[in-house]
Structures are given as C-alpha cells and as structure tokens.
C-alpha cells in the first residue's frame, strides 16, 4: 500500500537541507511508519534528489516522524535550477513510498 493511505506529510527547506514530516492519520499506524519508514529507506527513496545523510526524529506524542534530508542536489532554494526550488513538493514523493502492512 502507498504511505499516503495511512499518513500525511509536509516539507520545508533551510538552504540545502530539507525536512519532510510524516504524520500518522491514526495513532495505531504510528508503529507501522516507525517500523517501515526508516532513514535508510528515505535516503534510498530520495537518492536522485539528495546526496547527504538522512536523519530521522521520532515524535510519539503526536504520532509523527521528521526526516531531515541533507545535501539537496542543485544547491538549495536560492541558487538551484530546479523548478521546485524549495522542495515543497517532496512531501508528495515521500507519500508515494510502498509499505507492507495489514494494520
């Protein structure tokens, strides 16, 4: 199933670093995203778009993860040639990830 069926997301930029949140619609799906959506998987998912490390922060109190993606290709919001200079559409790319769950 696609991640977007159980979670929502928002992305924002700070220079060449982009953060992408992932928030479970239902509390019962928080353990699913914790188990399925690892920093390594997110790094592989965004391999073409960012070359640096991906750090994952866990926020159990709101059932959310926060991914900090370093080394955005193209040099960040002010100088990149990319159409979406801010990376604001990256949330939609994360939600396209396929996950395994019967929860």
């Amino acid at each position, binding site marked *: 199933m696609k991640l977007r069926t159980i979670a929502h997301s928002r992305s924002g930029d700070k220079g060449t670093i982009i953060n992408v949140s992932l*928030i479970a*619609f239902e509390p019962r799906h928080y353990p699913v995203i914790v188990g399925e959506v690892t920093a390594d998987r997110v790094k592989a998912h965004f391999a073409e778009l960012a070359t640096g490390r991906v750090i994952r922060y866990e926020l159990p109190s709101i059932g959310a993860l926060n991914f900090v993606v370093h080394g955005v290709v193209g040099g960040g919001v*002010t100088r990149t040639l990319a159409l979406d200079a801010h990376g604001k559409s990256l949330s939609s790319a994360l939600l396209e990830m396929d996950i395994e769950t019967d929860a």
Partner: protein
Amino acid sequence: MKTVRIGCGAGFAGDRIEPAIELATKGDLDYLVFECLAERTIALAQQAKARDPQLGYDFMLAARMEAVLPVCRERGTTIITNMGAANPSAGAEVVRRIAERRGLKGLSIAAIVGDDVMGLIEDGDFTVMETGEPVRSLADRLVSANAYIGADPIVRALEQKADVVIMGRAADPSLFVGPLMHAHGQSLDDCDQVGRATLVGHLLECGGQVTGGYFADPGLKDVPGLDNLGFPLAEVPERGPLVITKVPGTGGVVTPATCKEQLLYEIHDPAAYMTPDTIADFSNVRVEAVGPDRVQVDGATGGPRPDLLKVSLAYRDSFIGEGQISYAGAGAEERARLAADIVVRRLARAGVHTSEIRCDLIGIDALHGSRLSRDHNRPYEVRLRVAARANTLPDAQAVANEVESLYTNGPAGGGGATRATREVLSLASTFVPRHLVRCDVRMVVI
C-alpha cells in the same frame, strides 16, 4: 488570569490582505503580527535601499497598513511586523504618513534598527558556516548581512507603549515571543515560558499554513473554503495549554492534523529548535481538538538563549537563463526530448558559457527526476523547461533565446514558448557574538 489574543496577518511578503482585515475587525486581538521577510527578500530590499536610501522596506507595507491601521487603533490592537526589511526607519515613516492622513492622533510607532551588521561582518574575521571559507572571500559580491535578532528589542518597544513595531531581520517566532512575554509580564530569562511562546510563534508565523493552507489533498484531507482562508490566532493564558483557532465564518480548518504539520514545518531536531531567544524543545508537544476549529497545544519547553546570533548573508552568485516550450499529442515526449537535445548542442556550438544546465519535462519528470517519476501514466502534453547557470547576463539570455528559437528551428508543433532571466542572490550564514549586535528602538508619536 489574562489570556492574550495574538493573530498572524501575513505569512510571507506577498500574502493575501483580506484575512488580516478579518482578524483585525473580528479577532478581538491584543496583537496582530505580519511576518513578511524571507532570507532573499531582505537582500533584494538591501539592493533597493542602495539605489534609493528612502526605499528598502516591504513593497506591500503601505497597502497592509492602509487596510488595518485605523481598525487596530480603534480596537487597541498593537501591530508588530518585520516589514521594515532593510530600512525600518523608512518603513516607520511610511506608517507615520498613513497615520497622520487617517487622523490617528497619539499613535506611537517604534522602529527597531540594528540587525544590519554589514559593517561588523566586513571588518571582522568570520567564517561562512556552509563552506568553511572566510566571509571576506565574498568581497564585493556581498550584498547584505543581517543578524537574526530576538524578542528583546520588541519588549523594549512595547514597554515604551508602541502601537506599531516595525523592524527588519527578526527571527520569525520572536515577533510573537516579544508581545507574549511583555503582555504576561514574564522575563526573557524564563526559559520554559520563552519556549512555549516560541511554539506559538512557530505555529502562527506562516499564516494560513496552520488553518488549512498547504494542506488540502482532495479525498484524503479535504478543506472547505480555501478561497476565503481564515488566518490563525492564538489564545494564550499566562501558563499552561493554549489554543490555536481562527475567526468563525472564515474558510479553512484548524485541526490536530493541520497543527502537527505546521509544528514540524522547517524543523530539524524537534528537541533543539534554535532561535535568538531560546533553544526550544517541541519533542513532547501534545495537540488536542477542544472544539470546532479549536486545537489545544501544550508541552513546549526551552533552554537558555544562545550566546551567538545567526547572520544571513546574501551575495551575488550568478545568472539563470530559462526557457519553456510545449509539445502535444502522440510523440510529444519524444519531440520534447529532441528539443532539449537541440538546445544543449546549440549552446555548445554557439559558445555560450554555462556552468550547469538542466532540462525538465514538465508533466513527466520535472519535480522529482526520472526514477521516482517512472511507471506513471504519460500525459497528453509535455512542457520542456531548460534552465542554465551563467556568469553573465548575456549568456543567460542566450539560453532563453535558444529555447525560443525552437519555434522555427526545432521539432514539429512547439508552442507557448516563454523566457526569463534573473540574477541569483545566494545565501549563506555565519554567527556573531550577541553582544556585538546593538539594537535601538526609535519612537515616533503622531
């Protein structure tokens, strides 16, 4: 126990004006904040000021003040804004003229100056955080250097009974921290209270992004009335949980989901959100719906304010030339790819110097590249976008020309070509000791 009502009337420089009028007239606000300053905006404002010393403030300042100043004066709502951009004193003069013409006798306007640290940076020995290079190496390419200043001068302006506070590069949440701490008579040394006020600022600072903007996804996350999106306000008691809401009757929604998305927006480590006022900890924040479009938020804390202030540096980097053209029907993608190939070869043949070139097929792979875009249905029409970086404006213009030339020299059926060139002001950052950044409050009374 007093509950302070604080609203956000703009989340970026070009934001809508009517939601602020709605907040000012129906929000029963103590404070109305306008956050209009992105990193690049202040660099552009600095360039405007270099051309004319009376300019350099936000281009929508007069329009926003004309819209809300009289009603805010009537209701006793204090306005706080970073629309001073590169020239808060000139911005204050604009506000003064409007206030005089509208007969707002007794109105006090405070301009906060001191965030412009260009002189300090040029004379000092600082390092660019992103590259490790000396800031000096940017030499005459450096356009602006502005320190992120905190809530302290805002509190001082409010203690002098300012009705309008206009400043430049404050940290966005500080625009809210200042009035909240002042209104509750709390010290900026009360770390947890500053952390809590920083959370309020962070949730409100992007305007409609917490009331249903940047959120809707039809079928999954529906939001009513986005054409009439209401901007947010917070009801903040002296201590404990606070409420995020909006003016009844406006479009949008305030739900735990909208608040969670905004809570993490542009956040890295949620336990260490650094501002000039504190290092805030949002990692244990709880959100709970307590009524229609009412969400209760609690659990933010904060540590002592950092000794160093971040400085945003803008420098002249390069030029970008860009052209676009569309192809339709069977073979549209193949023709667009052929067109891209022609442009790249032409630029080489014509000796146009570019350091980087990018060809996107809008509708196919422009946003996220070829791999994530694979296996999706192909559209009926495709738009080629070629963007390239050059060191000179003529070379950037040549890139746009080559795309436009596809009309008569490229594949069949190319239509709707557009072209653009722009100078790139890039951003970097450095840190300066707090004590070297002196902020003054300049009061004018009508």
